[in-house]
């Protein structure tokens, strides 16, 4: 029967064709093995007796591997982070020291801005010497006792050593990087090179990145914002602080960042594979690019006018054109001009270098073209992710109808519809002339009767939707004082009322007439009883509402009182 020897971490196993263990030799130390393990053997190794060895051997291996994984990359990462920590602490301590020391020697404190120098001088020199240096005439500082002065000087000494430690770390990084990544260090500079390595974790991982990723390392937040919401992509990450990018004019920065990242990517690859030193060559190539006439200062954009495309044979005043200059404006640009309007701006404006090498054309601002009376299509360019298709296909063209239906910004049918405005007629809204002219300002309320709305039968059956009001005031009379709400009927009869004639106000007013006195103007200030009013008790009013009003026009849809809103309870 053919047998095979399989090496496992635990030892050597001789297995038969079915994978059964025939013989096992357990090792004393973990064995290195890349053998494929037959599954019956794997199953057999589940046995409890192997557990402890499996655990210990694996832990031994892991410890060795972790130990071996420590390398220069880790040191570089820790050093650059430590430098950042020290810098932060030093700034904080400096502020405190200045504040404190100014009580003692304000003249010198304000005369020196550099924190590092300040700490050194405070720690090493006396007040008198420093005052003499700044040629102060007298001092506002207090004279401190030794016990009050000592803590200040101690703090200064500490700050001085913080700065010294930071500088030492910088030197350490320079040495480490010169050995580990000389090309990267020469182009990026010590701090940025170290930061790039720290961010990716190792030189190897950095080497595996394409230049475009390298360009935006450190700007992950902006990148993810760009990917998820369609915001503008970041132009640069850590390399933003590189002088090649930082000192470029604003509109140049993106381009410079890209060029720099290109060279960095090359340099890192050279470093990782221990190649030759090419940084000088790469740097020279970069420097050549900075001399290209790209900035506005070096060459005026369009001498003929800001928005006008230059005439075909305008004299050019450019020192070293990098690209082949086009001789004339291409035909398609001129065709696109609005016919007959020679002064209208061309629908395209030049992009790329303002100095005049043509690199492309971009549409002119929409507003500008509308002002010039040109026909302008709707903008189709929508970068928002919420409109983007997942499969990456282009959107189907929109027809005119869809455009009016959906929002004009929607790139494809059904992408986004603005909800129809809900306009309630305002209270007290009077139709003005404007409304007569261009139609009502609001939608008519939904007329249920028109739609043939019928109250469903079962609703009638299961009773009213609301409680009937309790007839509380049926017989009761409640006098209401003051002015009656409703004007009393103009004709008053005297048959009703109390027995005492004298007390009746109407009688009194007749008396007045007989006396020849003026009738009292305001005769309403007497008490009016509800029972004296027509249909005035709540019960009566309710009764009246219940009666079918024949004289009224029958309503197609009788409004009922809505049931009271259900209270939300826990």
């Amino acid at each position, binding site marked *: 029967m053919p047998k095979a020897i399989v*090496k*496992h*971490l635990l030892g050597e196993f001789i297995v038969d064709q079915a994978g059964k263990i025939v013989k096992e030799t357990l090792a004393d130390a973990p*064995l290195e*093995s*890349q*053998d*494929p*393990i037959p*599954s019956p053997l*794997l*199953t057999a*190794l*589940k046995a*409890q007796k*192997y*557990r*402890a060895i*499996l*655990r*210990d*051997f*694996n*832990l031994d*291996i*892991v*410890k060795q*591997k*972790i130990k071996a*994984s*420590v390398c220069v990359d880790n040191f570089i990462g820790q050093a650059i982070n430590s430098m950042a920590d020290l810098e932060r602490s030093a700034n904080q301590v400096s502020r405190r020291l200045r504040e404190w020391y100014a009580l003692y020697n304000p003249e010198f404190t304000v005369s020196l801005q550099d924190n590092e120098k300040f700490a050194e001088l405070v720690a090493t020199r006396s007040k008198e010497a420093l005052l003499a240096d700044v040629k102060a005439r007298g001092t506002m500082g207090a004279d401190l006792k030794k016990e009050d002065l000592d803590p200040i000087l101690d703090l200064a000494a500490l700050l001085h050593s913080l700065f010294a430690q930071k500088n030492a770390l910088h030197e350490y990084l320079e040495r480490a990087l010169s050995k580990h990544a000389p090309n990267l260090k020469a182009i990026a500079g010590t701090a940025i090179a170290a930061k790039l390595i720290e961010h990716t974790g190792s030189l190897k991982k950095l080497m595996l990145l394409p230049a475009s990723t390298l360009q935006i390392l450190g700007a992950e937040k902006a990148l*993810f914002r760009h*990917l*998820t919401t369609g915001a503008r992509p970041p132009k640069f990450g850590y390399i933003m602080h590189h002088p090649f990018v930082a000192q470029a004019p604003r509109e140049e920065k993106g381009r410079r960042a890209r060029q720099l990242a290109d060279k960095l990517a090359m340099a890192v690859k050279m470093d990782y594979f221990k190649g030759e030193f090419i940084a000088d060559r790469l740097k020279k190539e970069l420097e050549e690019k900075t001399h290209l006439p790209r900035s506005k200062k070096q060459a005026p954009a369009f001498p003929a006018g800001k928005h006008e495309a230059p005439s075909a044979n305008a004299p050019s005043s450019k020192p070293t054109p990098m690209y082949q200059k086009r001789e004339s404006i291409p035909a398609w640009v001129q065709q696109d001009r609005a016919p007959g309007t020679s002064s209208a701006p061309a629908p395209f404006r030049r992009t790329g270098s303002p100095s005049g090498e043509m690199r492309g054309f971009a549409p002119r601002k929409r507003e500008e073209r509308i002002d010039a009376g040109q026909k302008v299509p709707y903008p189709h360019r929508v970068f928002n*992710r919420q409109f983007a298709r*997942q499969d990456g296909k282009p959107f189907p063209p929109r027809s005119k109808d869809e455009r009016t239906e959906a929002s004009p910004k929607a790139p494809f049918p059904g992408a986004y519809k603005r909800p129809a405005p809900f306009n309630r007629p305002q209270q007290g809204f009077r139709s003005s002339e404007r409304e007569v002219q261009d139609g009502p300002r609001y939608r008519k309320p939904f007329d249920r009767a028109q739609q043939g709305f019928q109250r469903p039968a079962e609703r009638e059956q299961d009773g009213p939707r609301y409680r009937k009001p309790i007839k509380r005031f049926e017989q009761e009379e409640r006098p209401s004082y003051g002015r009656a709400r409703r004007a009393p009927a103009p004709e008053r009869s005297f048959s009703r009322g109390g027995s005492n004639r004298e007390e009746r106000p109407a009688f009194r007013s007749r008396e007045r007439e007989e006396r020849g006195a003026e009738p009292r103007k305001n005769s309403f200030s007497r008490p009016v009883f509800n029972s004296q009013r027509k249909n005035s008790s709540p019960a009566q009013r309710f009764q009246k509402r219940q009666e079918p009003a024949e004289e009224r026009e029958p309503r197609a849809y009788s409004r009922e009182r809505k049931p009271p809103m259900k209270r939300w309870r826990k």
Partner: protein
Amino acid sequence: MIEPSKIFEVFQEKQALFTKSLNPGKKVYNERLVIQDGVEYRQWDPTKSKLGAAILRGASNVGIRKGDIVLYLGCSTGTTPSHVSDMIGEDGFLFGLDVAPRVLRNFVFLCEQRPNMTALFEDAAHPEQYAAKVCEVDVVYQDVAQRNQAEIFLKNCKAFLKDGGYGLLAVKARSVDITKKPAVIFREVREQIGKELIIVDERTLEPFEKDHCFFVCRKK
């Protein structure tokens, strides 16, 4: 009052989950320790552990039982593995695997405190490289924030999971593709692993983790 929950070896007091501590008196990630009837329980923080979140979200079966052997891919510093180690008990065994030395260092310290755990410094994407260091397992748990999570998961299940064993997969949508909708990614993963495994349970971990989904599968 801490009582057994519907998951084996997991205990519950209202909305708080607990496991019986295998190493009494020691905290792993600064969790709460509760002693009841002389037994020490460690509280399981669902915001730090996706398995805990899945259980609180109502997963009725996570396939882990006492005495199981677990392959844990992406063990990190051992937050979840410590609770799994509690669940499987002394008779169980857990292989924790990670690629990052920094976090594995802490995990090794944890392993040394617990007799049923060991660590592997390997890349889960290459199971052939550590095939000779493990044995067959009853449960594969995977939580690696990688683009091809599902593929890695299937490879490992194929190589090490016993027939009828359980595979647990935590999918983080943002690490697969941040431009796609999470629901789309979960559907793709479901289709991919559904071909080779039986999906027993699937749930999003919404209040605890954003855009995560937890799959419980069984090998045919």
